[in-house]
């Protein structure tokens, strides 16, 4: 099995320092350290387990800024064999449609059985790019996977798709695109050996001219939306601290909820 995992470097949310650039309201990616998007790590872990069970290898594809290789090495250290980064000055400020077009273009040259993507990114949070890629490439699209069971001999894959009431068992022919969730399991920590090995793994960098983007214009200049303003939301009122014994505390909470007409 050859599995492509789409990974995105995102600002480390734990840093709490995310901000927009004051001149164009784009995310200031230089302001804080980047990490691999958490949902993409679940996708990568699931892909590595599938490759261990069925043979084959996992490769990474990313569209990101020039600093991305450092973050992608972390994903290589987890066990991916190699990676491709599409990076181009023109791609700064890309919207979800551009991103889908570019990643679909990058995938168009590759051979794979599965493409795995995280459910959304912690920065943009759109959650619409994987469906766009599957649509542009004409791949079967299986979203919100809690379990992935390929049958390489039959060239099919089954996925448990999380539904509001439980899950649906979906089946599609390979190759297919699957959206991964945390329910697939905790990502592994890179071993020291993995970190050492990652240094010499191939990380190919492509620019826009190397990628067959056929579906329409891409990049910041072609963005279909723009941020026109930003403000801090009105701060929450000061916290009321209740330290009374349980029964009295409970009475005060009920009184508060009734005052706010919640109950």
């Amino acid at each position: 099995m050859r599995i492509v995992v789409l990974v995105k470097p995102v600002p480390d949310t734990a840093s709490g320092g995310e901000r927009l650039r004051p001149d164009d309201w784009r995310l200031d990616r230089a302001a804080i350290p980047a990490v691999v998007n958490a949902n993409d790590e679940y996708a990568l872990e699931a892909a590595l387990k599938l490759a261990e069970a069925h043979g084959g290898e996992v490769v990474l594809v990313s569209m990101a800024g020039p600093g991305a290789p450092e973050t992608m090495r972390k994903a290589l250290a987890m066990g991916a064999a190699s990676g491709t980064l599409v990076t181009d000055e023109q791609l700064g400020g890309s919207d979800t449609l551009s991103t889908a077009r570019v990643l679909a273009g990058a995938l168009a040259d590759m051979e794979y059985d599965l493409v795995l993507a995280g459910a959304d990114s912690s920065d943009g949070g759109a959650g619409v790019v994987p469906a766009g890629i599957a649509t542009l490439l004409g791949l079967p699209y299986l979203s919100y996977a809690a379990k992935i069971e390929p049958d390489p001999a039959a060239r099919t894959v089954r996925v448990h798709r999380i539904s509001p009431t439980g899950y649906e068992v979906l089946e599609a022919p390979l190759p297919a695109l699957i959206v991964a969730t945390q329910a697939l399991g905790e990502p592994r920590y890179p071993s020291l050996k993995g970190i050492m090995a990652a240094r010499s793994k191939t990380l190919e960098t492509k620019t826009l001219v190397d990628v067959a983007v056929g579906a329409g214009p891409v990049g910041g200049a072609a963005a279909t939306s723009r941020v026109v303003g930003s403000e801090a939301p009105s701060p929450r009122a000061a916290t009321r601290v209740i330290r009374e014994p349980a029964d009295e505390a409970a009475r005060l909470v009920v009184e508060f909820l009734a005052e706010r007409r919640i109950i």
Partner: protein
Amino acid sequence: MPGDAIWVHGELAADGSLAKISTEVATLARTVGETAGRQVVGVVVGADPAAAAAELARFVPRVLALTEPATADHAAGTIVGQRLAGLIEREQPAFLLTGAGPEGRDVAGVVSALTGWGVLVNAVGVTWDDGPVVQMSVFGGKLTTTSRLTEERGIVTVRPNVVTAEPAAAPGSVEAGNIFGELDLPLVRIVDRVEAAGVAAPIEEARIIVAGGRGVGGPDGFKVVNDLAEALGGAVGATRAAVDSGWIPYAQQIGQTGKIVKPALYLALGISGAIQHKVGMQTAGTIVAINRDPDAPIAEFADVVVIGDLFEVAPALLAALRARAG
């Protein structure tokens, strides 16, 4: 000549009724449409769209019901997206509003790729100023950004609980819509549907959420969380720590890699309020926390924090709520 209508995608719930999120999106679209002086049209695509279409017509003046048999036993997102894109090409509306939940996102991604329309995502507010103006809450609620589409066309995905669903003064009409062309994208067969035990309404839609974290201590500790949720008529949520420990299913997880929720009340039991959890819930109307640790981050952003042992305070609260309900 292109039309200028605002369309609303009506999602079907598992039982064929209209998903709650769609009643909210429809209410929002109607309000925006009134300001903009634009026609608002609901579109429902399904194997049996009648019930959901009738429900959607309580909210918007006109609803198109597209009968698409393939959704009966195939994953809906790609199919619905193609049918919407086909109809969009023909009828030339200006905007499509949909929910920002799993199906809305799938549909938005497909329609965007097929039509070339841009998507403004996760709206927490939509107003009109010669086009939709969309507020988004970003960086875990630290900032609210305002965005616009650069063209006269586009898709907006709307978060649950942004508006309260309100039917229109007079119900709208339902027409059978036409489906055009073949389904070119591969169909994904639904082999089985499995109901999970004890799964209540989707937490994104709940008006009240009672959530448990590491401090709840184990699956048994979730009993009082469940009881409180029941007493308040709310849903049960959890932190990643509680989900990773196997105390509660992933579908209930709130936070960065789980659901983003905006209930009227968020009651947090044994939850420290780490950033990864905070981003999923901090736009809740009211946050009440019960925590042993006065220095927990949640004590800084909750409206009320009870410092104490949750296994004493929560049962007392349950008793007080039950006494009040009589």
